[in-house]
Structures are given as C-alpha cells and as structure tokens.
C-alpha cells in the first residue's frame, strides 16, 4: 500500500508528498519492520533500482512476507526531479537538517515527519551513491559511536567494505545519526556514482537486503549467500588522494583495483597546453575503493581513496 508520510502545500497548484510503499501480510504480520530509504540527495540514483527491484520481488512473493517492509524511494522529490543534490529553492543539503522539527520551517518539518515515520524500525538502510564526482565500491559507513550495534548487521548486507569512521559533530545532523541516536539502527550504504545506476551493485545490495530480512524474521522465502566484507576501523588505514593542481583528471585504473606502491592511478593534464601536470601514483600497496569519475578537478579535489594493505582481501 502506498502511504503518504508527510505532505506540504506549495504556492502554485501542487502538493509536495513524501511517500512510502508499505508491504506487509494481510494480518499485519509479526511486528518486525525493515525500512529501505533513499533519495536524500537528488543526484544519487543507485537506490532507485534497489527500491524497484525489492518492491517487485516482494510483491511477487507476498506469501513469504512475515513482517513489514517500508520502501521510501524519494525523501527529496524536488531534488530527484530537478537533478539537484540538495533541496532546490533552498540550496540546502537535506542530510544536514535531521532530526528536523515539527515546529520548524517546511524542510525541518518534512525531516521531522520522515524520522517519525521511520523511527522504530528494527533496521533501516539509507542508500547513497557518493556524488557525481566519485565512484565507490558497495560499502557501509558506520560512525564509531554506533559500531557495536551496527557492525553485526552491516556484515550481513553483502557489501564489499565496511568503513568505521571517527565521530564528527557536523554529521550529527544526518538522517542516519539522528535515527541511530534515537535507538533505530540505521546503516548508511554508499555505492556506485551519482546520476547513474549500476545494476550489478543494485543486484548485490538487493541480495543483502533480502538476507537481512530473513535474519530479522521479516521474510520466510528464498535467502541469498552474502560475501564477507573487508572491515576498516582504523582511520590511518585509509589514504585520501587529493589533486595537487587544477586540470583534467584521466584515470588509469577503475575502482576496486588492487594496487602496488608506485602503480599509476591517473594523470592530471592541461588540454590547453598539452602538458601532463601531475601523475598520481599509489603511495603503498592497497585497494582503491573510491576513484574520481568527474574529470574536471581543482587543487584539492578528491581523486580517490585507498585502503592500505588489503590488496589480497578482495
């Protein structure tokens, strides 16, 4: 059943509605609930395929459903519709306004009602797609404050990598942090690249979600085998590669590549002069789990991330 989680009247003949698909047995099920959420950033579309595939699969196998599956494909409908990362008209990053406020302005109100709708789920997956600049292998990112509770679930999600990162005050305004703080376990998935859909990654995460549904008792149908992810809990394990100069970045390897120290990752070139401005080489053996997709770079632009010493693990 399609439900409206929150709606707001707009000035000119339109109502903004944030909707979810609620799938549950006719008798309401066993009370267990998983929520799959995406589209906070309007330019991240990888979750669209996952939501479609999950909804289609469950609706064709409703007899196996024991609990509730809530699918929220578009938390930021304005953004998705206008190819805008943030909330258009406000130039606001929606993932910096949670938990929102029922008494706040339109966006804070929307955020509060979304949290109200999702809170209390036994597990939430918040699917992101990095941004238009970077491509990521399927991974889950966990704030170290919530690692004990989230890591066992993350390991069952069929991703390649789990990155436990340090706490940051700025991230306290995110959807996932707000829910985790409110005792609703929420996993942040990053995979693929902005403005595109990588169906193989979607298929991989879909299998992980079905497996998690089975573990939660929401699902009594087919299960899928899941892969064992690499887990990094040490911030010193991850190397950030930033552009030394402005130019056009030409990558030499793809994300997921195993690297030896000195391997060429890409070049920054100047099309006007025909020069190679810089060659980016791996500083050590490792696994390239992020690579820059968008070629135009300024000094400082992120070009990639390497997990040190994990070359043979994946």
């Amino acid at each position, binding site marked *: 059943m399609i439900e409206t989680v929150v709606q*707001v*009247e*707009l*000035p*000119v*003949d339109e109502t903004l509605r944030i909707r979810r698909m609620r799938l549950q047995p006719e008798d309401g099920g066993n009370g267990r609930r998983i929520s799959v959420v995406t589209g906070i950033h309007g330019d991240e579309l990888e979750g669209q395929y996952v939501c479609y595939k999950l909804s289609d699969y469950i609706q064709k196998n409703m007899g196996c459903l024991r609990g509730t599956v809530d699918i929220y494909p578009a938390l930021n409908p304005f953004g998705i519709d206008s190819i805008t*990362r*943030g909330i258009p008209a*406000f*130039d*606001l990053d929606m993932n*910096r306004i949670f938990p929102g406020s029922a*008494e*706040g*302005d*339109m966006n804070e*109100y929307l955020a509060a009602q979304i949290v109200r709708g999702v809170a209390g789920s036994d597990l939430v997956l918040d699917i992101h797609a990095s*941004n238009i*600049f970077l491509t990521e292998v399927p991974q889950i990112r966990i704030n170290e404050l919530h690692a004990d509770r989230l890591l066992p679930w993350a390991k069952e999600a069929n991703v390649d990598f789990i990155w436990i990162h340090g706490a940051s*005050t*700025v*991230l*306290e*305004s995110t959807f996932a942090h707000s829910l985790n703080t409110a005792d609703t376990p929420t996993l942040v998935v990053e995979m693929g690249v902005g403005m595109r859909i990588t169906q193989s990654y979607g298929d991989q995460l879909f299998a992980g979600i079905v497996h998690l549904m089975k573990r939660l008792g929401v699902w009594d149908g087919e299960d899928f085998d899941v892969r064992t992810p690499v887990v990094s809990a040490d911030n010193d394990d991850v190397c*950030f590669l*930033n552009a030394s*100069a*402005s*130019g*056009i970045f030409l990558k030499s390897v793809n994300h997921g590549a195993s690297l030896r120290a000195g391997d060429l990752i890409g070049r920054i070139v*100047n099309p*006007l002069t025909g020069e190679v401005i810089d060659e980016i080489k791996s500083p050590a053996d490792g696994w390239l789990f992020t690579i820059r997709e968008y070629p*135009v770079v*300024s*000094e*400082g*632009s*992120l070009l990639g991330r390497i997990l040190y010493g994990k070359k043979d693990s994946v």
Partner: protein
Amino acid sequence: MEKKILFEIKALYRDDFRVTGYSFGQGERAACVVGSMRGNENQQLYCCSQLVRKLKELEAEGRIHSGKEILVVPCVNPYSMNIKKRFWSIDNTDINRMFPGYDEGETTQRIAGGLFEAIKDYRYGLQFASFYMPGRFVPHIRVMKTGFEDVELAREFGFPYVLLHTPRPFDTATLNYNWQIWETKAFSVYTTTTEEIDRSSARQAVESVLNFLRKADVIDYDGFEGYVSKVVSTEDMVTVRNRSAGFFEGKAEAGEHVRKGQVLACIADCYEGEVIDEIRSPIDGTLLFAHAEPRVYQNTAVYKIIPEREEW
C-alpha cells in the same frame, strides 16, 4: 594600506582564485573583518567596500592607532560571486561549513584553511554574515554561545540588538565558531539584506564597526554613538508561521513594533487571488525578521519577533 593575497589556487581555464585582504596600520593583529563568503552576499561585499574606503581615509589622516593592524577581507569566494552561484562553483560546498579548514583536504577545505591561517590570530574577528531565509533583518550582532563569547563587548557596536545563539552541529564548522575556539573575540554583523544592497543599513553597519574599533582602542573616530543594545537569546524569540501557501503580502516590516492580534501579512491564492490566510502577531514585540519573497511555502517562518519585556 597594503593590498595582499591571503590565499591562492591556480585554475585550469579561469583566472587564478584569490582571496585578497586589505591591511591598515602596522603592529598587533587587532581586528579582522570578513565580508562575503557566498556568491549571493552582495550586501556583505558592499559593506566591506565601504569599510575599506573609510579606513583608507582614516589611515591617511593618521587615525589608526600606532601598533595596531586591521585586516579587511571583502570576499572569500570571488569565483561564485562572478558566476552568480551561492556556493562553490564545482561541488556546491559552502566555505562557511569548512572551518577551521584543512590544507591537505578538498578545495573548499583548503580555502577555509588558507584563510583561517591568515586571520586566526586577530584579537577581534568580525564577519558580515547572511542568513539562508529570504527576508529583511533589523541590523544586529549575533554571538554564538561557545563558552568563550563576550556579550558585553558585543554591545559596543551600538546596534539595537545583540542576539545570543546556541550553536547547532553544523555551526561548529563556521568561521565565527572557530574564531572563538581559537580565542578571537568573534561577532557576526547582520545587516538588512543579502542579495539586494541596502545602502542605509550598510552605512549603519560600517559606522557600528568603526564605533566598535574606536571603543576597542584601535582607531580614532568621531561618529555614530549607537544604541544601548538589548541582549536577546534566540530561544526567546517568537517565530510566526503561515498555515497556507500562496502569494505573500507583508503588512509589517522588520524593525516595526507590533501589538498582539495585529495583522502582519496576508496570504492570497495564487490562481484565484482571494485572501486565504491572515497572519496575526501572537504577542507584543518588535519584528527582528520579516519574510520578503512574493510567494511563500506552507509553514514558513515569515516573522521573528522579539517579545516586549521590561527587563530587556
């Protein structure tokens, strides 16, 4: 006066990105004033340009105190200003969410880091700031409650109001917050507008900054003495919201004293023209902020009122 480049990035096709500062006087790093940080902050840029003009005159007249230096940074983000984009030209990040910055990080982290390195040691830090909501403000000083704030000093600007603001998580990456953490006495100066230039409130803001610098023993200046500021916490302000979306017709302006029950604005249906909502003041007070766009979404904070109280 010395014009100097505080931070620079070489570009591929555009002119190099530069953050330029104007230094007046020599000696102790007494005061730093920062203007526009976002591409739509015309008023903030204008205020700085007027301040630079006045400080040039004062310096020529020998009225900057010996052993004191003032730095004015009119614009931190000329790239975005020149293409009329609010945030950073490539990735849309906000430089004022990147402090204290990081010299090996992403581009806007490097800009914030480069600027902060140049301005973090000043005794007083003043920023002409803007608010994301479209509307007009009563000029005021805003101070973040970090434990290092100096409210009494904020009164020295002579603005009608000093607003005390409890930081939210994203505020911890702003210039004002980090200035305070690095022991600079930091103040945000809010004038009436952002995109539109309001010369009257810009004049008032520049006079207030000069007044502050005089009281802080940095310059000699005979000018605006100012108001006896009322200190108000943002939690004490009353927000008024509209129930319906539509055309917004304001009937009260920022700075106006209003009575409980007074009609502040009407909302009209965008197709049929009929008034569908009347917004009334819930209290007696002064309008600190008034919405100023032709249309309005439902449940928007259209007015912020400072309640009338004996103790202010």
